[in-house]
C-alpha cells in the first residue's frame, strides 16, 4: 500500500471524509473515489452505480465498489440529481484503480446547493485528515 507521500491528490478538486472526490465541470459536478481509497481497496472488480435521474441527499449511499474480498459503500458528498454515470466501469472497473480522477470517474450530478462543494475539504485539509488516520 502507498505511503501518504506517494498518493496522487490533485489540487483542483475537493475531498470528502469517506474518500470520495468532487470536481466542477461547468454546471455539473463529477464524483469518484480518490487515490487513497482505490489503493486501500486493491483490485476493483465491480462498481455498482445508480440510474441517471435518481436523487440523493448528501451523505447517502449511492452505490458500492467491490474488490475480490470486500464491498465498500459509496457516499455522495453533495445532494443532487444524477445526470450521468460512467458506463465504461461496467466492463472495465479497473479504470478506478488506474485513473481514479479521469477515466475512473463514477457519477455526474446536478447539485442542489453549489455551496456544499465549498464545505468539502481541500487537498491540504484532507491530507491532515489522512495523517490523523495513520
Amino acid at each position, binding site marked *: 500500500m502507498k505511503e501518504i507521500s506517494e498518493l496522487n491528490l490533485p489540487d483542483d478538486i475537493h475531498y470528502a471524509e469517506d474518500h470520495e472526490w468532487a470536481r466542477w465541470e461547468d454546471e455539473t459536478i463529477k464524483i469518484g473515489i480518490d487515490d487513497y481509497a482505490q489503493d486501500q481497496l486493491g483490485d476493483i472488480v465491480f462498481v455498482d452505480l445508480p440510474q441517471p435521474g435518481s436523487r440523493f441527499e448528501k451523505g447517502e449511499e449511492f452505490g458500492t465498489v467491490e474488490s475480490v474480498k*470486500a464491498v465498500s459503500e459509496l457516499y455522495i458528498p453533495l445532494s443532487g440529481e444524477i445526470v450521468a454515470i460512467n458506463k465504461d466501469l461496467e466492463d472495465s472497473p479497473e479504470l478506478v484503480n488506474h485513473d481514479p480522477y479521469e477515466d475512473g470517474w463514477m457519477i455526474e450530478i446536478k447539485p442542489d446547493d453549489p455551496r456544499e462543494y465549498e464545505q468539502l475539504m481541500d487537498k491540504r485539509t484532507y491530507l491532515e485528515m489522512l495523517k490523523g488516520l495513520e
Partner: protein
Amino acid sequence: MRYFPHTAGDVESMLSVVGRHSLDELFSSIPPSCRLEDKLDLPDPMTEWELNDHMNALAAANTTSENGKLFIGAGSYDHFIPASVAALSGRSEFVTSYTPYQPEISQGTLQAIYEYQTLTARLLGLETANASMYDGASALAEGMLMALRLSKKRTIALSRLIHPHCQGVVRTYLAPTDCTIVELPCGTDGRTDLSPLKGRTDIAAVAVQSPNFFGVIEDLETIVGTAKGINALTVASFTEALAYGLLQPPGYFGADIACGEGQSMGIPRIFGGPALGMFASRMEYVRNMPGRLVGVTSDREGARGFVLTLSTREQHIRREKATSNICTNNSLCALIAAIYMASLGGTGLRRLAQLNRDKSEYLKSGLLSRGFRSVFTGQTFNEFVLEAPAGFSRTYRKLLERKIVAGLRMDRYYPDLKNHYLFCATERHSKADMDALLEEVNA
C-alpha cells in the same frame, strides 16, 4: 477410544508445556457456576460391533424398495444409482474436505463444481448456475427472494401445484417480510390457472413447477408470455430433474430463474435429505443470484485453475446485506449429480427419461382399465393423479400391511381431492412389479 491418538504420556507432557496439572484445569477460565457437575445423561459408548447391530436393527425397521414396493415419488424419487457414482463420490478427498477457500489444494472440488454448474445450466437451458443449494424448497424460496430483489415489487404469484412442502418453505421464508403471495389455482387440465394474473402490475414473479405436483407438464411458453405481459419474472421450479432429459428446458421458453430438486440425479432418497437444490439463471442477474459460484481463472504461470468467485455477495463479507441465507452449498450432492449426469450423458438422460415416462404410462393405463378415473387432461412425465374406485382405500390399507405403497393420498394436501392418489413409476419398477400391483387392485 480409537479416535484419540493421545497416550497418557502425551497428555502429561502437553499439560506441562501449557502449565496445567490436569485436563480439568484447562477449563479454569470457565466460572465454576457455569460448569456442569454431573455427567451427561447419554447411553454408554458402543463398540463398532455393537453399533453395527444396533444400526442394522434400526435400518431394518424402515421400508424401501428392497423389502417393499413403493409407487410414490412426490419430491423423492427411486432411481437406480450406479456403483461407480457411489464409489467416486465416496472418495475421502472429496468427502473430508471443507469449502474450497484455498483453491491451490481444492482444485478437485472446484473443477467438479464448475462442471456441475455447466451441466446444470445446460440441462435447464440457462446461461449460469450456482454451486447448488440445500434442497428444492430452499432453492425456490431463494429464487423468490431474488426475484423480489430484482423487481423491487412486493408481491409474488405462487402456483398451488408447486409441491406443497416447497410452497410451505416459501411461506416460512417470507413470513417476517411485508411480501404478499397470490395463489394461482389448478385448471381442469391439471395445469396452473393463470387468470388471477390478469390486469395486475404488482407481481414480482410468477412461480410454477413443471412437471407439477400432479405430475402434469406445465405450459411454460404461455406462462412466460403471461408473466412478461405483466412485467413479472418467471421462476420455473421442479422436483423431478430427470424430466429435463426429455422436456424442453425452462430456459428455452425464456424463464428467468429455474430452480428445484436434483435428488433424482444419483442421490439416495434417505428420508428426504440431504438432497440438492439446483439453481440457474441468466448471466445478467448473476450479481443478484444466491449461493456460491465457481469461476475459471489462471495461476501465475498461466495454467487454468478454478476459484470461488463473486463472493462479495455472500454473508461472510456482506453480512446483513448478503443476497442469501446460503453460506455453504450441498457440494457433495452436486458432485454426485455431476457424476451421474456424466455417466448417462445427454443420450442416456434422454433414453432414461423416456423410459420413466413409458413405465408410468403403462401403470396409468393399467389402473384406468381397473376402475380408476382420469381427472386431469394434461400430459404427465413419471407421476400422475387418478381418482380411485369406491372401496380402494381398504385395499390401500391392506397393501400397506405388506409394505406396498400404492400411491400417495392427495386429500392430505388438497382436501377437495378426496379419494385421489398420486402414483409414480420409474425405471426401477419392472413390468412384473406393476402387473403385480394391478392384480392386487383388481382383487
